[in-house]
């Protein structure tokens, strides 16, 4: 059996059933691809033995060709998400390293200013410039 194929296509109800080999894409990839189509179609995922079944019903009525195109788009999206997952895994250690460095750097800066000026860099405000102007105007005179 093909790794992915259209099992059912019914333009009358704008319904399309696509089946995929479970070994072809991870569940996360399937979720991610389905999520992309959630604004255009109603999606129900299922599993039948070693096949994932993706039932899609378009929210707008669609002709046969558009539905076939949507099936192709879904398969492309699966591929894109699979690549994204692979790149994410390959770069995970680098991303974690950079994030840890950024957080430790920010913590060190915050600690060095703990007794000094605030985060805005001002030490004090002798002329009261930091006070909201509405409060100044509303304050009773005299």
């Amino acid at each position, binding site marked *: 059996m093909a790794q992915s194929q259209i099992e059912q296509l019914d333009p009358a109800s704008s319904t399309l059933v696509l089946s995929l080999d479970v070994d072809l894409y991870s*569940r*996360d990839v*399937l*979720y*991610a691809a*389905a*999520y992309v189509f*959630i604004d255009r179609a*109603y*999606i*129900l*995922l*299922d*599993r039948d033995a070693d096949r*994932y079944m993706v039932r899609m*019903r378009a929210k707008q009525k669609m002709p046969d060709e558009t539905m076939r195109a949507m099936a192709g788009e879904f398969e492309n999206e699966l591929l894109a998400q699979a690549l994204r997952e692979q790149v994410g895994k390959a770069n995970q250690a680098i991303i974690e390293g950079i994030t840890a460095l950024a957080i430790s750097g920010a913590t060190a800066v915050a600690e060095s200013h703990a007794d000094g000026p605030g985060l805005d860099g001002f030490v004090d405000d002798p002329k009261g410039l930091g006070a909201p102007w509405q409060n100044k105007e509303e304050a009773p005179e005299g």
Partner: protein
Amino acid sequence: MSAAQAAGAAATVRFHKELYDEQAIADATATFADYARFGVRGEGDHFVVDISDLDSEIEGDIVAEFCNFALANSAALRRNDG
């Protein structure tokens, strides 16, 4: 189901346990609780959701929207669980 539900209409949806999280389905039933009555039970590899008393006043397909919510919730839960 078409644009609007027939008064008091019912439907049954089967969610595969490997693909849908029970909590995600429960969250989706809570989201749609004002528009229908939901009963969730396990049956083999599936969670079976019996949907009844669909609100006929609501435009759109409540059952299909409910399925999309269950899917989105399952994906979000899985992402959060890492």
